[in-house]
């Protein structure tokens, strides 16, 4: 028996745990399921507020809350004595009597932990007088509603908001029966300055208190036809999600990585845009423009029209393709083969940032070191330097990492840039330039700094190289690479950089004779991309949703499978390739990207090579220990073009 191992008995069953475990943790480790919980939640600190998890140590007559009481070697506890069951029912009755829980008109009835526990405990009546105290129903926010009449004060939302999202928007006010959850010290959720509308509070709420207004009454979890584990297809964080499907619609999306660094949170985009996406109008047939309208055609005719244009312009050097950087690795690989077969130039939505970033990191990649680290390593840094970076806008969950690192892990936060810090109140230092002596002075005391680079830095290769040099100078080394987190937005930017990024910046240059656009319809196209679409001689747009402006810009409009109809892999900034899974059956008559490209190749009479792509974790993995990375020389000539926040250099030691 090792020193840290303890043995205790739960309902007579011998259970093994580690010193420091709570009784509940030992129970969970040993598959004991007889301890009910309500305020306790995996991944959050335990507060022992609800008293549902009480257990009785043998012979003592006391009750201990299993979620907060440490397990001891030799301890014997019972979990289901008559006394405990009656005590728990009493607690539940008091919860029902204290607030106004009317199950029959609650959107969460049937999806409610409080209701489930009450029924499990045989609560067929309430022996206490109902208080009927009026509580507020906070409907100030368009998306998140907080009906305090149904609150049991478990504080799961308060803890999630602080410990996982780091906004600390929610708190408690007053004491006793009239205590309520509040936002921003007496404000409401709608008027809160700090709330990021991520909806994590609603995901963890065990009752019908905090609910998502758009998603109410769309289906209880247990009434759903399917629950699919996949990842969010929007940004490069690639958060693990659970998608609930009912009658062909996505009715609810929840974060699942409860034990991981993000704690199962999602951002507002993932939480609200994903369920909405299955309700959007679709492109269901190929369509060809005739004058100012579109004519529905067969797939055969559409391929004929596109194929003849392809033949006509082949070799003209004025053929291009614009592929979403939200496309999967598999789709990008197949397009890369298509490009080689028919000879067209390819770009993706955020080519600008990517090309700059790629050129900037190249010298470090050549050294065999990964020039960036997994985004969750922000949590492991002791100093976070934002260089013209606002993670809340690009990668909202990374912004949560920044807040949590600062508030709960004592990391220091520095903002470098021309504007104000995106984290007012928790930023330790604001400077205009990375080489500011105040910053370099602070960095001397840092053991593990991490640098977050914003879009204006990423699009500039010199700035990227200088930031990497700076990171090496200040020993920003993590296990997987250098302490840099590039704020690249779209979900498969790394994959796009790996497969289809164009060498030269042709997009927005001269007009194209032929342009093929593959969109996932999940992010708005840039004005540069839209302008290229409208200016090209012949434009094919393959997109899942019939939404302007993009659906108006094609000469041929092809249906594409939506994110919930596709599967594949996305290279995330969390340092791994993650699997996107199919959720709904594709609408009838839909053809996948590869199928269309194959048909076009046959039409043109060329053979498409075998598509292949290596996983990004192999492409970018460090081959040497990151701390062996060496700084590289920056061309004096080019240095003049540096982004202002990186102008200057470190004083060289003689």
């Amino acid at each position, binding site marked *: 028996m090792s020193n840290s191992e303890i043995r205790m008995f739960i309902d007579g069953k011998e259970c093994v745990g580690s010193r420091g475990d709570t009784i509940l943790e030992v129970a969970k480790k040993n598959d004991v399921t007889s301890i009910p919980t309500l305020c306790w939640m995996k991944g959050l600190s335990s507060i022992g507020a609800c008293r549902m998890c009480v257990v009785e140590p043998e012979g003592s007559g006391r009750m201990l809350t299993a979620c907060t009481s440490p397990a001891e070697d030799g301890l014997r506890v019972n979990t289901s004595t008559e006394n405990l069951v009656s005590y728990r029912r009493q607690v539940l009755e008091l919860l*029902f009597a204290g607030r*106004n829980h*009317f*199950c*029959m*008109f*609650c959107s969460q*009835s*049937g999806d409610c932990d409080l*209701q489930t526990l*009450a*029924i*499990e*405990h*045989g609560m*067929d*009546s*309430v022996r206490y*007088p*109902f208080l*009927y105290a*009026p509580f507020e129903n906070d409907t100030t926010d368009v998306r998140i509603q907080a009906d305090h009449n149904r609150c049991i004060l478990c504080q799961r939302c308060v803890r999630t908001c602080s410990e996982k999202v780091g906004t600390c928007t929610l708190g408690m006010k007053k004491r006793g029966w009239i205590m309520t959850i509040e936002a921003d010290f007496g404000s409401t959720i709608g008027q809160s300055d700090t709330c990021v509308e991520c909806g994590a509070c609603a995901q963890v709420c065990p009752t019908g208190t905090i609910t998502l207004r758009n998603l109410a009454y769309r289906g209880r979890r247990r009434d759903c036809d399917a629950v699919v584990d996949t990842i969010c297809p929007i940004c490069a964080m690639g958060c693990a999600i659970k998608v609930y499907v009912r009658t062909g619609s996505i009715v609810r999306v929840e974060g699942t990585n409860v034990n991981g660094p993000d704690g199962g949170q999602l951002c507002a985009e993932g939480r609200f845009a994903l369920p909405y996406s299955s309700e959007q109008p679709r492109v269901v047939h190929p369509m060809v423009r005739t004058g100012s309208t579109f004519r529905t055609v067969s797939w055969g005719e559409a391929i004929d029209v596109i194929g003849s244009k392809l033949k006509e312009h082949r070799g003209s050097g004025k053929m291009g393709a614009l592929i979403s950087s939200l496309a999967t690795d598999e789709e990008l690989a197949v397009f890369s083969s298509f490009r080689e077969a028919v000879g067209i130039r390819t770009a993706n939505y955020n080519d600008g940032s990517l090309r700059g970033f790629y050129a900037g990191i190249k010298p470090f990649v050549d050294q065999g070191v990964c020039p960036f680290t997994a985004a969750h390593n922000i949590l492991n840094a002791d100093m976070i330097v934002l260089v013209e970076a606002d993670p809340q806008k690009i990668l909202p969950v990374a912004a949560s990492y920044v807040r949590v690192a600062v508030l709960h892990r004592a990391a220091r936060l520095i903002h470098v840039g021309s504007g104000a810090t995106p984290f007012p109140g928790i930023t330790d230092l604001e400077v205009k330039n990375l080489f500011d002596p105040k910053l370099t002075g602070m960095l001397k005391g840092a053991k593990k700094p991490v640098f977050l680079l914003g879009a204006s830095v990423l699009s500039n290769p010199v700035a990227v190289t200088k930031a990497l040099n700076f990171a090496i100078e200040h020993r920003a080394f993590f296990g997987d690479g250098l302490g840099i987190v590039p704020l690249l937005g779209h979900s498969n930017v790394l994959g796009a950089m790996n497969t289809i990024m164009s060498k030269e910046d042709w997009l927005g240059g001269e007009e194209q004779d032929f342009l093929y656009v593959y969109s996932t319809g999940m992010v708005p196209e840039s004005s540069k991309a839209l302008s290229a679409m409208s200016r090209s001689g012949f434009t094919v747009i393959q997109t899942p949703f019939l939404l302007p402006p993009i659906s108006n810009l094609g000469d041929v409009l092809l249906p594409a499978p939506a994110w919930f109809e596709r599967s594949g892999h996305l290279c995330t900034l969390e340092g791994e390739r993650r699997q996107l899974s199919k959720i709904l059956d594709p609408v009838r008559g839909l053809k996948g990207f590869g199928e269309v490209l194959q048909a076009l190749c046959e039409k043109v009479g060329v053979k498409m090579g075998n598509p292949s792509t290596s996983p990004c974790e192999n492409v970018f993995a460090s081959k040497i220990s990151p701390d062996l990375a060496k700084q590289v020389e920056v061309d004096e000539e080019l240095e003049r073009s540096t982004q202002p926040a990186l102008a200057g250099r470190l004083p060289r030691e003689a």
Partner: protein
Amino acid sequence: MAKPKVASVWLEACAGCHMSFLDMDERLLDLFSRVEITSTPISDIKEIPEVTVGVIEGGLGNEEELHVARDLREKCKILVAWGDCAVFGGINCMRNFIKPEDMLREAYTDTVSTVNPSGVIPHVDLPPLLPQAIPVDRAVKVDVYVPGCPPDADTIAWVFNEILEGRIPKVPSQMMRYD
């Protein structure tokens, strides 16, 4: 031996529990062969006789309902509370956050859709409201609680069967619902 008698009343509620009772379908025939149905909202016998089983659907919101509940309690051996309104107070309790007179004014004069130029609030010939709507067990002792909005027909049938077998049932978790 004479069949045990059953009486039921429909107090402050929507009649959904009685509908759920009718949803017992062909099992009703079996029940009727075992009990004698007396005064109910369906059979339209006005006077509640002495019965073995009394059933209350609905909460108590006015003095008449309170009187009926007490009357039935006195006349029955086993009192069953059907549905969330009888058990917990239910939707009637939404009025408990305001005073009865304010509620009446809101309902009969202030609502935008109400046309009541002389501002008459019904009061004559109507039983006065209780200060708050209450569950049945705040006024009289209840022997069997059957929560649900409404309780399933299966649950209602099971409860009758248990009583006829001579037991005082307690609805098990797998049958219990609050919505």
